């Protein structure tokens, strides 16, 4: 009986064989450590290799415009060809993760700079130290981005596109409210005062200020600089402890609570989860707003620009945007370096980025033929030097994720009116130190 049953179930045998095979296969596929293929980075030399290879490059949708300009300029002046793939912002991590798991990352890929420390630590990028050290202008490259990509003293990431948070104001609305259209607020109290003045104009469908109060990324991008401008920090040096229950931070929360309560904030800001957080200002409905500098070229009216004022004065900015590196799976390191080397050159920084009104990643190039045409670009580049990029391994989970404790904290403080800031801050630290 036993034997007859055994003979009669070829299905079961096949099924279990397949199952076992799959498990073993799965194990084998995924336990292969990132003992990277010989990529040729070490032999890349200063310039890299331009031999007509095809390179793949991934970036996320919000940086598409800049990435496309850069890739087009590179392709038209080099034999190598870069193929650009743009991924929806919210799904970028999923895509990179899936590719990393099966060793099929593109040659080059960009990372939101706040994720870079984590991705570097997970081994997604190849070590670029020798190559970067060979650059004569290394000390002029944006330090925030370089630091974010540095682990154990090894550099993995160069700045791809910088995005800086700045204070933008609508000069027309400033004039109507009797404010000097050329000068922005000097500190947080003045910022609130200006917003209320514009609100007091009682213009239809026009508000003092706006932000995304349901968007962790928007708020950290625009609020952290006010703490830095005072000379304080938002995170401990090792990125495992949150310092966001400080007096400065509390001042920011209470200012925003007051602004919301007094009706000076665009109503849709309350639920704004990010996708349209700057739309109100772009449409001229908002007086002044902390705003990404990459949008300067697409702001259709005359806007004033300054660094973000500190709680007690001073200015700073959040040096965001994307860093870029050579992926662990690339076998064309020398060619990829050719692109990166060009990316850092004056041709790319000035000829492409500055021409498009974007910030340059080298401090020695901030004064260039395009910036002199628009003094606001000079302002942006100057503030960039004072800016910072926070470094923490669990940054995404603690701050950017839709269910992050940072978002819980600011919503509790500003909309809930609960006095739970210390407990909420501990929650952020708990996630950061996981």
């Amino acid at each position, binding site marked *: 009986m036993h034997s007859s049953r055994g003979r009669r179930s070829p*299905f079961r045998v096949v*099924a279990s064989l*397949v*199952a076992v095979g*799959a*498990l073993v296969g*799965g*194990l084998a596929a*995924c*336990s*292969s450590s*990132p003992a990277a293929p010989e990529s040729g980075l070490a032999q890349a030399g200063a310039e890299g290799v331009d031999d007509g290879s095809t390179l793949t490059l991934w970036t996320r949708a919000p940086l598409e415009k800049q990435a496309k300009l850069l890739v087009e300029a590179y392709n038209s002046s080099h034999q190598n060809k870069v193929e650009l793939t743009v991924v929806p912002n*919210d*799904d970028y*991590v*999923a895509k*990179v*993760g899936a590719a*990393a*798991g099966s060793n099929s990352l593109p040659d080059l890929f960009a990372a939101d700079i706040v994720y870079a420390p*984590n*991705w570097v630590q*997970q*081994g*997604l990028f190849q070590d670029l130290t020798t190559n970067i050290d060979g650059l004569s202008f290394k000390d002029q490259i944006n330090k925030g981005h370089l630091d974010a990509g540095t682990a154990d003293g090894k550099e993995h990431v160069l700045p791809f596109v910088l995005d800086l948070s700045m204070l933008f104001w609508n000069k027309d609305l400033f004039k109507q409210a009797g404010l000097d259209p050329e000068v922005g607020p000097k500190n947080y109290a003045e910022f609130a005062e200006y917003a209320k003045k514009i609100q007091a104009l009682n213009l239809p469908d026009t508000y003092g200020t706006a932000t995304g109060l*349901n968007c962790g990324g928007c708020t950290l991008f625009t609020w952290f600089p006010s703490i830095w401008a005072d000379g304080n920090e938002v995170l401990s040096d090792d990125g495992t402890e949150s310092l966001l229950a400080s007096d400065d931070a509390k001042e920011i929360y209470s200012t925003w609570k007051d602004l919301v309560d007094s009706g000076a904030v665009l*109503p*849709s800001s*309350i*639920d704004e*989860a990010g996708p*349209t957080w700057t*739309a*109100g200002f772009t449409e001229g409905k908002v007086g002044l707003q902390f705003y990404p500098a990459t949008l300067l070229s697409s702001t259709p009216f005359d806007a004033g620009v300054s660094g973000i004022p500190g709680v007690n004065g001073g200015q700073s900015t959040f040096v965001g945007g994307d860093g870029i590196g050579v992926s662990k799976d690339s076998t064309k390191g020398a060619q990829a370096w050719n692109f990166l080397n060009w990316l850092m050159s004056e041709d790319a920084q000035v000829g492409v980025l500055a021409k498009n009104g974007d910030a340059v990643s080298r401090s020695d190039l901030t004064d260039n033929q395009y910036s002199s045409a628009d003094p606001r670009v000079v302002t942006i580049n100057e503030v960039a030097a004072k800016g910072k990029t926070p470094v923490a391994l*669990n940054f*995404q*989970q*603690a701050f*950017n*994720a*839709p*269910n*992050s404790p940072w978002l*819980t904290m600011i*919503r509790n403080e500003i909309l809930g009116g609960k006095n739970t800031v210390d407990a909420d801050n501990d929650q952020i630290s708990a996630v950061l130190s996981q």
Partner: protein
Amino acid sequence: MTTTAPNRTDASKPGPPLRVAVGKRKRRPGGQRGWLYAAPLAIFVIALFIVPLLLVGQMSLSDWPLLAGNRGINAPENFVDAFQNRFFLDALVFTLKYTVIATVLLLSLGLGLALIVQESSRWKNFLRTAFLVPSALGLASASLLFYVLYSPIAGPFADLTQALGFTFLGTADSALWSTVFLIVWRFAGFYMLLMMVGLQGIPGDVYEAARMDGASRWQTFRSITLPLLKPTIGLTTVLCITGSILAFEQFYILTKGGPDNSTITLVQLIYSIAFQGQNNLGVAAALSIIVLVVLVLINIVQIRVIRTDKEN
């Protein structure tokens, strides 16, 4: 057909899901040929479903960060982490709440619409088409459509909602109901169709008899339509509950789990653990296994209930 009493044995013939169990009664020759025809299906199911599922099982037992890959077995840590996740309980409660609301609404509305358009006339054919057209859209397209529709900037109700100080996705309750509305809009037609099929299976003479007995419409509905529709209601309930517990895209596009983490479903939690922060495939896989087990249990219970119902 001269029956006056509801012909229950006929109307409630073992339905498709139950034939699985009773299928052995019909002995047909040709086992090998059967396998030959079923082979493509078997290959697909094994290669593209069972094997990945086993891999999910392996992930759930391993330390498996999204970006770094497998780091070896760590069971049962992932399951512990999954249960201890600070959103696990909220997500579970919310998913169940959403499932109950969606199921009750979709089934009752599906039945109601089916009763309205059951007969054939020009107007009713038009209505039927109108109710069914939304089901031609993908869930993602439908969610995108409502994303614009609900938008306080571009939506058609933007001015109205602003005047009323209300937003579609602003509070926990409004976000839930706005999403439920999208789901009802998208799926009501489909459930209507299933209900129509069920209604069609009820012999007309049963109604005839009820009418001769002087039963009111409500009485007829309660004592004839509903009982005879039980198999259909059972099947649609299984479908609807399964679909709702796995709800993801609609919340992913419309609310992203907000505001204030009030609309996180289980699958969304899985997604966010895997891709939005923790980037831990192990815990995400453990949670998937938990959801799978819960679903299988729920469905077994439901099918049991339907079956015992039938035997009585």
